[in-house]
C-alpha cells in the first residue's frame, strides 16, 4: 500500500516537472547587442544570459589571431580576422544552455575555446536536477521499502545468472585459435604506427592530425562509450602496445615454443604489487593532458614511449609487467571493467582444486601461462584479467569460459579490494570533474593556467591538480564515509576499510561521468575524423576524397539530454551498488539504510555538480 503511494507520488512529481508547460516569459523580447571579444582560448564575455525569444546580435572581434564563433543548437557561425569584426544575429528561441565555440583553428587549446549561451528559463537544467534528486530519493526509498535480501557471500556467489558465450561453437573455435589475439593486434598496430608517424611527422595542427583525432576522439570515445561499459578489458585483448615486446619475448607470434623466452624473465618485486604505479602514471598523464591531448608531436612521443617501455619491460621481466603495473589506461579500464557484463572465469572451481598441473598459469604446448600474472582458478573479478584467452587454450579440462553476466557483478566482490583501487576510482571521478571544468567550461583563466608556459605556472597547476585529486575530493568522500559510519553504527570495520568498500560505489558513476564527458566531444568534433582519414598527416593527401569535409558538429543540442540520461543512470546504479556494499559490512537492514544516506547524498552532489557544468 505504502509502496504504491510512494510510487504514485514520485511518478506524479516527475511528470509535473518534466511535462509542465514552461512558465510564460513575461515582458517583451529584448535585444542583446554585445561585442564578443575572442582571444586564445576564451571568449569575453564567457557566459551570455538571455531570455527565450530575445534577439541576440553579436559582434565578434578577434584580438590576437583569427577566430570564429559557432553557436550549438542554433547552427550560426561567423569568422573574424583581427581588425575585421564579424556580425552574428539570431533569435534565442530554444531554451537551455548552448556552447558557443571557436570555429577556426587558433592554436593548441582551440577545441576547448568555448563560451556558454544560457537561454532562460533553463528548463533542461532544472529538469535534470529534479530528475537527479528524484532518482536519489526514489532509489533510497525503493531500497528501503524492498529490503533486498542480503546474499550470504556476495563475493563468491554469482550475483545473477551467467550466459556462457563459449558455448557458441564458432566463437569458441575463434578464441582457441592462436591467431585470434595477434590478428586483432596487427590491425590495431597498423593504426598505432600511423598515429606515431602522424604525431611525429604530420601537421602540428591537432584538428588535422590523425594522431590527435583518432587517439583522443575516436579511440577514447569508443573505449569509454562502448568497449569498457559493454566489454570491460576487451581493448586489452587487441591493444598493440604490448604486442612487439610480447612477440619478442615469445620468439614468435602464433607459434607456441617450448624454448626459453627472450627475456631475463625477472619476477616483478612483490613490494611493487598493486595499482599505485598506475595511479601515478594516470596522474602524470592527466596533469599534462592539456599538452598531450592537443599537440600531435607530444601524443606521438607518449605513444612511442609506451611501446618502448613495453618492449624493454618484456625483455627484463616475465610476462606482461607493463600492462599489469605500468599502463595508466589499464589501471582505470581494469577498475571500470568490474562493471562490464563480460567476464572470463573458470566454470567449476572444484575441477581446478583437483587438478595440480595448473597449465593456465604455467603454460602448456597449447599456450602460454597467464601473461597478466593471474592464477585463473582464483579469478573472481575482472580487474586484472586482460582477456588474452591464453587460459582458454591451455586448460586441458575445458574449464574456462567467457560469460555474459549482469552489469556490475564484480563490484560486490570483497577479495582484491584495496586503497589503490579506491584512489583510482577517486582520481577518475575527480579528473572527469576537472576536465569538464577546464576543457568544457567557459573560464579562460583556467585554460590559461592549465596551458601555462612558465615553470612556476606549471608547478602551481600541477600542485593544485594533485591536491584536488589526492586530498580534496578523497577528503570530501572520506567525510561522507565517516558520516555513514557514524549514522549506521557499523562496528568492527575500520574507517579505512569502509572508505575502500564504499569507493566501489563510485565506479558506475565514474564510468557514466566519462561517458557523458565523451559525448560532448564525440558529437561536436567527430567530423574531424572524416577529413583526417583522407589526409592523416595534413600533407595535402586526399585518400578517400573526404579531405575537404568541413568541421560539422552533429546534433550538439542532443548532447545535454544524453548526458542527463547517462548521469542519472550512473547515479541510480551507484546508489544500488552502495546499498549492496553496505549490506556486506552491516549487521542489519537498518544499518545498511542509515549508512547509505550520506553516500547517496555524496553521489547526488557529484551528479548535480556535473549537471551544473554541462547544463546549468
Amino acid at each position, binding site marked *: 500500500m505504502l509502496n504504491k503511494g510512494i510510487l504514485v507520488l514520485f511518478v506524479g512529481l516527475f511528470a509535473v516537472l518534466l511535462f509542465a508547460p514552461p512558465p510564460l516569459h513575461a515582458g517583451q523580447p529584448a535585444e542583446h547587442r554585445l561585442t564578443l571579444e575572442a582571444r586564445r582560448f576564451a571568449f569575453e564575455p564567457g557566459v551570455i544570459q538571455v531570455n527565450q525569444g530575445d534577439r541576440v546580435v553579436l559582434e565578434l572581434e578577434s584580438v590576437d589571431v583569427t577566430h570564429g564563433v559557432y553557436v550549438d543548437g542554433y547552427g550560426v557561425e561567423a569568422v573574424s580576422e583581427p581588425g575585421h569584426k564579424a556580425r552574428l544575429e539570431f533569435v534565442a528561441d530554444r531554451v537551455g544552455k548552448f556552447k558557443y565555440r571557436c570555429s577556426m*583553428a587558433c592554436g593548441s587549446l582551440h577545441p576547448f575555446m568555448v563560451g556558454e549561451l544560457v537561454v532562460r528559463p533553463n528548463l533542461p537544467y532544472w529538469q535534470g536536477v529534479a530528475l537527479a534528486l528524484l532518482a536519489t530519493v526514489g532509489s533510497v526509498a525503493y531500497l528501503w521499502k524492498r529490503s533486498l535480501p542480503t546474499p550470504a557471500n556476495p563475493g563468491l556467489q554469482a550475483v545473477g545468472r551467467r550466459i556462457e558465450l563459449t558455448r557458441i561453437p564458432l566463437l569458441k573455435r575463434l578464441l582457441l585459435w592462436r591467431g585470434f589475439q595477434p590478428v586483432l593486434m596487427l590491425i590495431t598496430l597498423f593504426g598505432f604506427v600511423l598515429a606515431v608517424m602522424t604525431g611525429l611527422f604530420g601537421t602540428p595542427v591537432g584538428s588535422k592530425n590523425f594522431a590527435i583525432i583518432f587517439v583522443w576522439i575516436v579511440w577514447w570515445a569508443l573505449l569509454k562509450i562502448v568497449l569498457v561499459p559493454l566489454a570491460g578489458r576487451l581493448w586489452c585483448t587487441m591493444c598493440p602496445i604490448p604486442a612487439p615486446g610480447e612477440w619478442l619475448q615469445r620468439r614468435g607470434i602464433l607459434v607456441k615454443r617450448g624454448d626459453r623466452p627472450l627475456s631475463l624473465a625477472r619476477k616483478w618485486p612483490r613490494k611493487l604489487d598493486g595499482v599505485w604505479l598506475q595511479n601515478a602514471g594516470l596522474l602524470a598523464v592527466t596533469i599534462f593532458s592539456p599538452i598531450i591531448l592537443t599537440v600531435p608531436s607530444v601524443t606521438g612521443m607518449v605513444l612511442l614511449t609506451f611501446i618502448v617501455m613495453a618492449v624493454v619491460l618484456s625483455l627484463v621481466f616475465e610476462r606482461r609487467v607493463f600492462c599489469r603495473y605500468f599502463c595508466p589506461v589499464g589501471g582505470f579500464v581494469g577498475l571500470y571493467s568490474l562493471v562490464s557484463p563480460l567476464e572470463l572465469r573458470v566454470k567449476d572451481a572444484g575441477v581446478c582444486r583437483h587438478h595440480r598441473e595448473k597449465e593456465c598459469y604455467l603454460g602448456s604446448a597449447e599456450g602460454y601461462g597467464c601473461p597478466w600474472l593471474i592464477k585463473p582458478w582464483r579469478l573472481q573479478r575482472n580487474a586484472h584479467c586482460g582477456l588474452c584467452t591464453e587460459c582458454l587454450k591451455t586448460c586441458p579440462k575445458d574449464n574456462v569460459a567467457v560469460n555474459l553476466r549482469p552489469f556490475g557483478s564484480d563490484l560486490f566482490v570483497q577479495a582484491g579490494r584495496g586503497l589503490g583501487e579506491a584512489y583510482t576510482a577517486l582520481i577518475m571521478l575527480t579528473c572527469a570533474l576537472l576536465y569538464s571544468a577546464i576543457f568544457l567550461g567557459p573560464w579562460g583563466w583556467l585554460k590559461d593556467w592549465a596551458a601555462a608556459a612558465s615553470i612556476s605556472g606549471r608547478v602551481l597547476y600541477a600542485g593544485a591538480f594533485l591536491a584536488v585529486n589526492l586530498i580534496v575530493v578523497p577528503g570530501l568522500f572520506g567525510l561522507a564515509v565517516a558520516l555513514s559510519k557514524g549514522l549506521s553504527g557499523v562496528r568492527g570495520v575500520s574507517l579505512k576499510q569502509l572508505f575502500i568498500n564504499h569507493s566501489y560505489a563510485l565506479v558506475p558513476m565514474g564510468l557514466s561521468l566519462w561517458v557523458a564527458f565523451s559525448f560532448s566531444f564525440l558529437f561536436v568534433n567527430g567530423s574531424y575524423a572524416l577529413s583526417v582519414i583522407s589526409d592523416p598527416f595534413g600533407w595535402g593527401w586526399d585518400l578517400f576524397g573526404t579531405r575537404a569535409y568541413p568541421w560539422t558538429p552533429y546534433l550538439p543540442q542532443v548532447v545535454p539530454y544524453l548526458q542527463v540520461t547517462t548521469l542519472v543512470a550512473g547515479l541510480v546504479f551507484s546508489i544500488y551498488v552502495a546499498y549492496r556494499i553496505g549490506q556486506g559490512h552491516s549487521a542489519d537492514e537498518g544499518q545498511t539504510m542509515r549508512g547509505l544516506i550520506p553516500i547517496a547524498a555524496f553521489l547526488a552532489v557529484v551528479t548535480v555538480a556535473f549537471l551544473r557544468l554541462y547544463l546549468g
Partner: protein
Amino acid sequence: MNKQELLVRCAALLITVGFPVSVFAYQHVYLPGTHGEAKVIDLVARAPEAGGWSPEIITVNKGDTVRLRIIGQDVVHGFAIGRLGIDVGPIIPGEVATVEFVADQAGRFTYYCNVWCDPYHYRMRGTLEVVDPAAPDALLMTEERSDFAGPDIDSPHEAEFYPVNPPSAVRGQALADRVELPSLGNLRSQSPSAVFQAIREQDSAASLSDEEVWDLVAYLWSTATTPERLATGEALYARNCVGCHGEAGRGDGPGSRHLEEPPTDFTDARTMAGGSSEIYYAKIRRGGMGTGMPYWGTIFTEEETWSIVDYLWTFLFGEPTEMEGLATLEFTKDNRKAQVMITCDQDKQITNVIITTGQE
C-alpha cells in the same frame, strides 16, 4: 616455421617497417616526380614568434612555372606576393593552399602574411628571387628604404587649420563655380591646411564660411582621384592596414595593443590636415622610422600606394560610401546646360541632389 607464422611475421614487419618506409618514399620520392614541369615548393607558415615563413628566401628562374604549397601550421595566416598581384587569401591551419604562377618577371619580390597573426605579424615576410638565367647577376634590387629621401616625413605635421565637422566634397562641388581658386600646383605636395588657407585668402571666398571652404577643399581632393582608385585603396587598406590602424582608421586595430606609440589615427583632422599625399606616400613606402610602421615599398606598386593614400583622405573628407552610387545626368538644350548629380549611401538612400545650370 609454419606458414601461418611466416604470414603474420611478414604482416608485422610490413606494418612496422614497410608501411612507414613506403609512406615517406611516396611523399618525398614518388610525389615530387609527378609534378611535371612545375617547380613545386613547400612553404610553411608559422606565426613570427614560432619562426615565420620557412623558407624565407625562395629562388626560381625566370620563366619557371612555380607551384607554391602553402602549409599553415598554427593559426590563420594570409599569403600575398607584392607587385605580382598574387593574394591567396586566408591560409587555414592544417590545410595546404596551392598557388601556381609563371615567374615571368625577373627581380626580387616580397611575399608576406596579410592576416593579423601575432604581435610581430609584420615581420612575417620572405623574398622571392626570380633570376634571369641570361643575366644572373642582374637581379634587380627592388626599391630600398633610402630611396625615399623626398619630403621630410619624420617631423610632426600638425595642421594650422583643420575642419571641425566632416566636410562634404559634394557640397564643395556646388560651390566650386562661385570661387576663383588660386593656382595650387601639384595637390599631392600640398596639405589640406595650406590649401584651406590659400582659398580663405581669396577675395571671392570672403562670403564663404570656414565649413564651406573645407567643403571646397574636400571637393578639390576628390577631383584628384577616381572611384576605381578609391576602391583599390580601400581593398588594400582592409587587407594590409587595419591590423594596426583599425577598420575605421582610428588607430585602434588589434596591433595597436602591442605598440608603445599608438598608430596614426586617420580620423584625427588636426593630424591629417597637416600632411600631404607625398608625405603619406613616402611614409607607407619607407615605413615610419622608430615606430611600428613597417615599410611597404617592396610590396605595393607606386600606383597601389597612391590608391591607399587617396583612400586615407576619405577618413578626413568623408566616407567613400557617401560617394557610392554617384550618378550624374546632363541635359543640354538651347545652349543651356543642366547637371543633376545624385548621391546615395550604401543603403540606397539618397543623400544629396545637386542641380547646377549654366550657359554652354
